[in-house]
């Protein structure tokens, strides 16, 4: 079983990203769970969203304490408290313009697999606004190999084509592709 934690702020789409990853798992015939952690709901508060993907039925119904993968989609949340509990062989993907070594020092982490990508700039470049969750999906794909770029693109089309139209869907996909190339270890 893989356990993924997505860290963002209210309104940044962390919950949607977690659900998209879960849906990709489901499409592949795996068992999935996806759930946000609800605190006092206020705009801008840190929000955690989780996904579990497994080959076997998932019976556990509690928070993820030791994630295999953490994705931080808001650069102001790169703080040690946020990455507590990550597995020693886990993977961390961070939206930042800093390098992975800088992030490792800042977080005082021994983790080998830290990836960085400037998802905010990519989001602004393609989507005209700061919704970094979409490009982050491309970065997560490259960093973890948990799902392919094609999987994300198909799911984005499935989820958004009707809602936002072909032009904006394409821009979303372009942002995902760029982030998947730009993400660095």
């Amino acid at each position, binding site marked *: 079983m893989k356990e993924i934690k997505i860290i963002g702020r209210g309104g940044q789409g962390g919950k949607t990203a977690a*659900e998209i990853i*879960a*849906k*990709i798992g*489901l*499409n*592949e*015939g795996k*068992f*999935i*769970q*996806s*759930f*946000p952690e*609800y605190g006092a709901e206020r705009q801008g508060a840190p929000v955690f969203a989780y996904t579990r993907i497994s080959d076997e039925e*998932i*019976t*556990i*119904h*509690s*928070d993820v*304490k030791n994630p295999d993968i953490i994705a931080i989609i808001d650069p102001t949340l790169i703080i040690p408290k946020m990455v507590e509990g990550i597995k020693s062989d886990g993977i961390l993907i961070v939206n930042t313009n800093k390098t992975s070594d800088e992030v490792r020092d800042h977080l005082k982490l021994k983790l080998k697999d830290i990836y960085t990508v400037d998802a905010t700039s990519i989001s602004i470049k393609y989507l005209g606004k700061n919704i970094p969750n979409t490009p982050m999906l491309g970065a997560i794909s490259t960093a973890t190999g948990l799902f*392919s770029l*094609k*999987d994300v693109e*198909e799911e984005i089309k499935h989820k958004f084509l009707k809602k936002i139209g072909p032009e904006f869907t394409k821009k979303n996909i372009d942002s995902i592709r760029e982030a998947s190339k730009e993400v660095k270890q």
Partner: protein
Amino acid sequence: MSKTKIDRTPLSGAESVAQAMRQINPEVVAAYPITPQTGIMHAFTAFVNDGDVDTEMIRVESEHSAMSATLGASAAGVRAITATSSNGLALMHEIVYIAASTRLPIVMPVVNRALSGPINIHCDHSDTMAERDSGWVQIYCENNQEAYEMTLLAIRLAEHKDILLPVMVCQDGFITSHGVEGVKLYKDSIVKKFLGKYKPKHPLLDTKNPITIGPLDFYDYYFEHKRQQSEAIHNVRKVFPKLVKEFKKISGKDYGFIESYMMDDAKEAIVVMSSSAGTTKEVVDRLRKEGRKVGMVKIRMFRPFPISEIKEVLKGVDIVAVLDRVESFGAVGGPLFNEIRSSLYDYNNKPKIVNYVFGLGGRSYTPELGRQVFDEISKDKNSKDYEHNLVRYLVVRN
């Protein structure tokens, strides 16, 4: 991406219930919003808006009115549903009792949430446990699939001629209600065939056979009517297995009043309800790998209480920990503990039994806590004075 046909849909527990309601297509749904139930009505009112159901959706001014309108519609002779949580259910309390004693087959999904105060939106079972003597059948669901299927089964159970009682289908607030899982939905045509067309026994609107509903009933007959109500809820014991057998042709599942997990040779057991049962299964799996003879019993139906199944499953066990997600103030332990302990009274070689109050107000129940319970009762097994510590609180500050 694999192109194999996936037969599961990603749905939250609330959406899973809304899908069941879409297939039930009740004539009347009355509701008042309250978190975390809102997810059900949010999804269901979209079906109403899109014309996927023929339901008359009544938006009322309070939960007291929601239950009253549902009761009125059910008395008139149609399928009627409402849903609620926490203080919403508490506000319905008066009409909840009247619905049961009027013998109306209302189905009500409840998303369990802690009762105020202090105000809290998260899960515990204080809301539905406060209604445990109301005369409603109570079913508690572990996951989204179960919430979907139990809502369908509840319709047939409520409407059965030997029962004619309302049914609550409970699931854990946020934990399952807002958690997405892959849910296998059965075809509309198959489900509709299973549900059948509702033929009310005594519809108020049958003007050729006029009846009175809700008359005064004093010392001359009130007692007899209460006794009949009690007979009716115990008839669930006979009817539910038959309905499960029929539904098995669709679901392939053997739903019992309880679910035992690794209990065949278990010496230590946890008894628990709803989503925490799933987490406990994970704990049992981990401890079994270490060679420990542990098991879990999930109470699926709390009312009527499955006494004979409990006696049978806990027979050879050394010690049992009953987990109550509610505090019963001034009592010796929670309501589930008292039911289980009372069920075992007649045995000469009864297992030792302790109670854990846990998860109040949404406090997380993790596999680590489940392990802690097993570790503690494992020590209590050989202790003589475990009774001095009969009711415990699973991780609470002093």
